């Protein structure tokens, strides 16, 4: 079993490495390099050559890659092409915001979805179950920005409850911050929870179909007790798996949501970077997002390996 866990860990590290290779390679296809972009029109061959030497762009690609990787690990990411600010300071300002939003979403969405998923699974085919399944079936297929638009229109424009733009100046106290963040958080919770509810319901129903549950029913154990004492404990592995998978989904979800609410987070920084073709910023943000994603997938796999005795046996 530990052998499998180790193997999966090694695969995770390997994947992060390959992802860094791919991200680095994408910048090499680009015609023109960072030196040309930073100097712009008024570049002379001499200044270009000097800046290239300073940035190490005149060295072979594999050495550049090594340099970039070592800088990435030490956190010294160089200057942004557009603003001239250091990338580490840009990211440092933003990453906390994104992490803050994501953690609030997680704290609310996870217990909420597990509870609703369980409630739906308790009486499959019942009224609650039918409502939950059909609402979530609709919501999972809807684009994130539609949820955001509807929320802005009704909650912010018509009712005037929360601001439609989540701009932060850095001087707000916690309540003002939460007020500003209410709509993006609601959007993300709706998007993530609908998926998580469906998967939790399916996971619990899957456990409910096993013979020992039938045994418990035949023994006359009350339904509530069966779900909470027998099914839930055995469904914890799959549920952890589901939670990790959906938090991985959050990595993509924040991109659209931060843009629509102009929230100063990491994803907004990256989208702006793509529009300005500020490759060093895009690279750094992409590395952070993709590593987080791979780590979450790793956790999801670990949960299913550790909870499923059949997967624990090496094949």
């Amino acid at each position, binding site marked *: 079993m530990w052998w499998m866990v180790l193997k999966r860990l090694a695969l995770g590290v390997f*994947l992060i490495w*390959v*992802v860094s290779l*791919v*991200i680095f390679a*994408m*910048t090499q*296809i*680009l015609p023109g390099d960072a030196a040309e972009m930073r100097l712009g029109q008024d570049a002379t061959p001499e200044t270009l050559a000097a800046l290239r030497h300073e940035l190490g762009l005149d060295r072979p690609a594999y050495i550049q890659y090594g340099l970039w990787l070592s800088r990435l690990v030490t956190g010294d990411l160089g200057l942004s092409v557009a603003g001239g600010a250091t990338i580490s300071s840009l990211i440092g300002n933003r990453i906390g915001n994104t992490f803050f939003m994501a953690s609030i979403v997680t704290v609310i969405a996870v217990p909420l979805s597990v509870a609703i998923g369980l409630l739906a699974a308790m009486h499959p085919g019942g009224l609650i179950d039918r409502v939950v399944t059909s609402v979530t*079936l*609709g919501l*999972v*297929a*809807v*684009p*994130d*920005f*539609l949820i955001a*638009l*509807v929320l*802005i*229109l009704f909650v912010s*424009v*018509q009712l005037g409850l929360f601001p*439609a733009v989540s701009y932060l100046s850095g001087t707000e106290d916690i309540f003002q911050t939460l007020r500003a963040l209410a709509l993006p958080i609601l959007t993300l919770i709706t998007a993530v929870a609908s*998926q998580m509810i*469906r*998967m939790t319901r*399916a996971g619990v129903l899957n456990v409910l179909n096993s013979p020992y549950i039938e045994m418990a029913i035949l023994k006359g154990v009350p339904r509530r007790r069966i779900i909470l004492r027998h099914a839930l404990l055995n469904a914890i592995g799959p549920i952890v798996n589901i939670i990790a*998978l959906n938090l*991985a*989904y959050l*990595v*993509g979800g924040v*991109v*659209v949501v931060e*843009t*629509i609410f102009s929230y100063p987070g990491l994803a907004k920084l*990256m*989208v702006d*970077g*793509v*529009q300005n*073709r500020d*490759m060093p910023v*895009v690279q750094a943000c*992409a590395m952070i*997002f*993709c590593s987080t*994603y*791979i780590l979450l*997938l790793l956790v999801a796999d670990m949960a299913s390996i550790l909870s499923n005795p059949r997967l624990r046996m090496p094949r």
Partner: protein
Amino acid sequence: MSAAPTDPAFEELPDAPPRRALRLTWTGKVSAGIILVWLALALVGPWIAPFSEAEFIEEDLQGNYYLDPSFLPPSEQTWLGTDYIGRDVFSRILWGARTTVGISLAATLLAYLFGIALGITAAVAGGWIDVLLSRAAEVVLSFPSIMLGLIVIAALGSSIPMLIVLAGFVYTAPVFRIARALGQDIMVQDFVEAARARGEGRWWIVSREILPSAVMPLASDFGLRLIFIILFVSSLSFLGLGVQPPMADWGSMVRENLSGLGNGFAGGAIASLAPAFAIGCLTIAINLVVDDLSVHEGGLLADKMI
């Protein structure tokens, strides 16, 4: 052996159990209708639209000039009002069906073409080809799809052919994984063993035994993949990185008219809400049909939506 091959009763015997007829629930039927309407609009939209996608509304029906034609409320002239620079929203939705549905459909077909070809190849060939292809798919799958889109667009820029190839490439990996798993399942079935024992060639086995058995499971997955690709492409357009103006596209229309949202329904909220609803209607409709299809299949494919 009393029945001769010419016996009519014998001839009528089916050589395989009859297929269950595909039955749609009423939601499935309505959804199928919506999908057909959108597909038809994608084909003929530009011809039935009252205005062109880049045409500005300058005067009303009586010939009076508008002071400010932007974000007009819905009227007889412009059914859904006008957008932020005074173009007819209804016409742009009709034009936008072509780009949104067209790009997504082309990308899905591309993903399926390569995904199935590579997946079946990996399943049938096995060995190092299988290992190589599977590892490559795993690398693509370890990117969040929108991240891969952002990185590629940052490096190569955005255009319509680029978007199709990009979305097709990103979603080839999951199709590959499903096709490979299906192929491996079918490869060990008795009828494939029998064909192999008869000495049939590999191509014969793939085209006559494996592909036909894989069609139905793949059909409902096709719907799910199409939803993901529509959401992927319109999210990129929404971020301003997909279809470029003045071309109409549902995702970019939402972005362009975002400023009208603050005016409420009377002044411009419809301009960004309507295209978003157009996308939502299409994806929900596909999802409902897929749900019916997967009930027909006996499995809950909708549970695979990750």
